[in-house]
């Protein structure tokens, strides 16, 4: 850690990178207490405290995630989160009620939301990036509405006309838009992802899902045959059994497809993303361990009726940190973000009405 301290004598361009493991030090026991007590306080305050809960949770996870022993920091205040939630609740309730009262008006509102959604996404990304800091330098998001509309609305809609064949390419473009517009200390991330990797990830995921569905159909057909012969009320037993099997299959496919796609894309994305002259990312997640983790997490949450959620969340964060490394270049030690220096740090609470993260969660 000593070498992290500033020495102005080194040659920034030539100096070799330091290899920094991402360390996560959050503990399931600690976070269980935080989550549980915050849940009760949120219920008792009719949801208002949930904004404080979100800030505390994020601060806990950011603060326990370190590169070269330096933690990330989450800077948003509960009032900012609360404002975003109130807006989200109003929009959600309006949409919910309208779709019940008047499908025609709801369609109109859906259209309005479709047009507004790129703006909301950009606002939320801007907010969340600006509220993330590492070594007292903030991240930023520089995407604009036009490009957000193109990537989140136009391209996915056009992909439908290619029978989703273009979807992996669209997903690559979306990732490039999101991550390529993030900057740290005034420097933009460079994302050099390849379309081919997105197609491979999509194909592997689909192939795995198809295999599981076929295997499951065979097994359940055998099981159903056995029950139908075994009992009088065979038909109803079969109906009940197949409902249960369907739910199990749904869980399995949900966990599996997510784990496979996320692992492959995360590795590819990280390995091809860098902050020129500051840092280079590397991810070495593996499909089977991550699949096992996702599946056992889901299972534990279901079996404990939700009580295992804090443990599952900590476990996932710890795994993802453990497979991530960052090569840090010496220039990272002397960054100064001009854009961020002016102004009053305590004045953040008085931000504009729409400088918020519009989200229920």
């Amino acid at each position, binding site marked *: 850690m000593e070498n*992290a*301290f*500033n020495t102005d004598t080194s040659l920034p361009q030539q100096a070799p990178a330091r290899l920094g493991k991402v360390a996560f*030090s959050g503990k399931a026991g*600690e976070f*269980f*207490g*935080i989550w*549980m*007590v*915050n*849940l*009760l*306080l949120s*219920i*008792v305050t009719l*949801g208002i405290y*949930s904004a404080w809960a979100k*800030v*505390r949770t994020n*601060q*806990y996870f950011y*603060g326990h995630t370190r590169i070269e022993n330096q*933690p990330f*920091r989450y800077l948003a205040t509960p009032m900012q989160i609360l404002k975003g939630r109130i807006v989200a*609740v109003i929009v*959600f*309730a309006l949409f*919910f*009620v309208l779709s019940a*009262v*008047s499908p*025609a008006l709801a369609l109109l509102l859906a259209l309005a939301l479709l047009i507004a959604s790129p703006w909301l996404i950009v606002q939320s990304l801007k907010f969340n990036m600006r509220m993330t800091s590492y*070594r*007292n*330098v903030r991240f930023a998001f520089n995407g604009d509405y036009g490009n957000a509309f193109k990537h989140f609305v136009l391209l996915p809609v056009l992909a439908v006309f290619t029978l989703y064949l273009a979807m992996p390419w669209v997903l690559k473009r979306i990732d490039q838009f999101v991550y390529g517009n993030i900057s740290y200390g005034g420097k933009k991330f460079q994302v050099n992802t390849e379309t081919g990797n997105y197609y491979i990830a999509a194909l592997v995921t689909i192939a795995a899902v198809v295999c599981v569905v076929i295997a499951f159909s065979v097994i359940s057909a055998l099981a159903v045959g056995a029950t139908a012969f075994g*009992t009088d*009320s065979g038909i*109803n*037993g079969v*109906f*009940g059994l197949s*409902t*249960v099997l369907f*739910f199990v299959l749904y869980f399995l496919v949900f966990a599996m497809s*997510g784990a496979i796609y996320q692992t492959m894309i995360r590795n590819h994305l990280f390995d091809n993303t860098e902050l020129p002259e500051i840092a280079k990312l590397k991810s070495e997640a593996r499909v089977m361990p991550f699949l096992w983790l996702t599946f056992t997490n889901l299972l534990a*949450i279901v079996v404990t009726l*939700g009580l295992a*959620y804090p443990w599952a*969340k900590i476990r996932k964060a710890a795994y993802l940190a453990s497979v991530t490394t960052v090569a840090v270049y010496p220039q990272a030690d*002397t*960054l*100064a973000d001009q854009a961020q*220096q002016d*102004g009053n*740090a*305590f004045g953040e609470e008085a931000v504009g009405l729409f400088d918020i993260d519009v*989200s*229920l*969660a």
Partner: protein
Amino acid sequence: MPGSHRVTGQFHQAASSTLYAAVAEISPTGRLNIISATDKRSLCNAAADDYRFGTVLPGLAVELQLRDGAVFVPDDAGFRWPQLSSKAKMAAWLESQKLSILAAIVLSPLLLWWIIVYAMPMLAVAAVPLVPDSVKQQMGQQTFYSLQKTVLQPTELAAPEQAAVQYHWQMALQQLPLQQSNYKLYLYKSDFFGANAFALPDGTVVVTDDLVKLLHDKPDALLAVLLHEIGHVEGQHSVRLVAQSLGAALVFGILFGDPEGIADLVLGSGSALLQSAFSRDMEREADQFALQQLKALGKSPSAFADAMTALLSEHGDSDDASASLLKYLSSHPDTRERIEQATQQLTD
């Protein structure tokens, strides 16, 4: 020695990634002085108004935030500034006490259950009269219109048969003390619904040809079905279902929403189950209404049981084995339970 702690840590200037090993000291008057640990020069000197403490969280150091954006972080993650108010330490204290965690484990599910099962339906009942009639008209008309366009075809029943159904309907409407006024009965052929009937919030009631044929020789059973549908309108169940489902969706979204989606799947199935539960409660209410009104009209509650029995044989509905699990997925109560309810009223 409280008041003049010397705390070693790290200092960052505003918006700068440069790290300084530093020592911070807060004087009894609240003045903060931070000096470099290496060359002892002053890095920062601030009055009590110009700095504040960060959030207290388990396992994490409590940072000092300066007005200009600079930050001081103590090296010892367990260090707590003596100047911290007990209010600032309150949340972290509650989150680490066995007693409060235990209380949260016990009380959270209980309170949630009470909110969903009692408070929200009560609120929905109270809120329903506030919904203007025009909104209910809208809801009914729009739904009716889209059903007409999709799954309803003109009735193929003979005129006398139609007249008989309308007669029972009119008779029931005239003799019952109903709160809503715009009741209208329509007959439609529908392969989609089969033998079925449904009510819309504006008082529109639709009965399918198949149902009329099924209950052809049981006019009282058809009346029981009509009364059940009137029960839905009288109870304003459509509006209540919307209000309750919205409430439940908001409660779960706010309390458990997780941007990473780890819990979304579980919650998705949870809210579907809840919606079915709300719907089942309302079906029971409409059943009760039908049974009471049958009595008021001087008919036997067994007519309701007859209608259910006929529908049961028609749809080949649930039997003993599957019922235990599937009842949580169904929007209607178990038909056998409904028949039992009706026959119980007979013996009362």
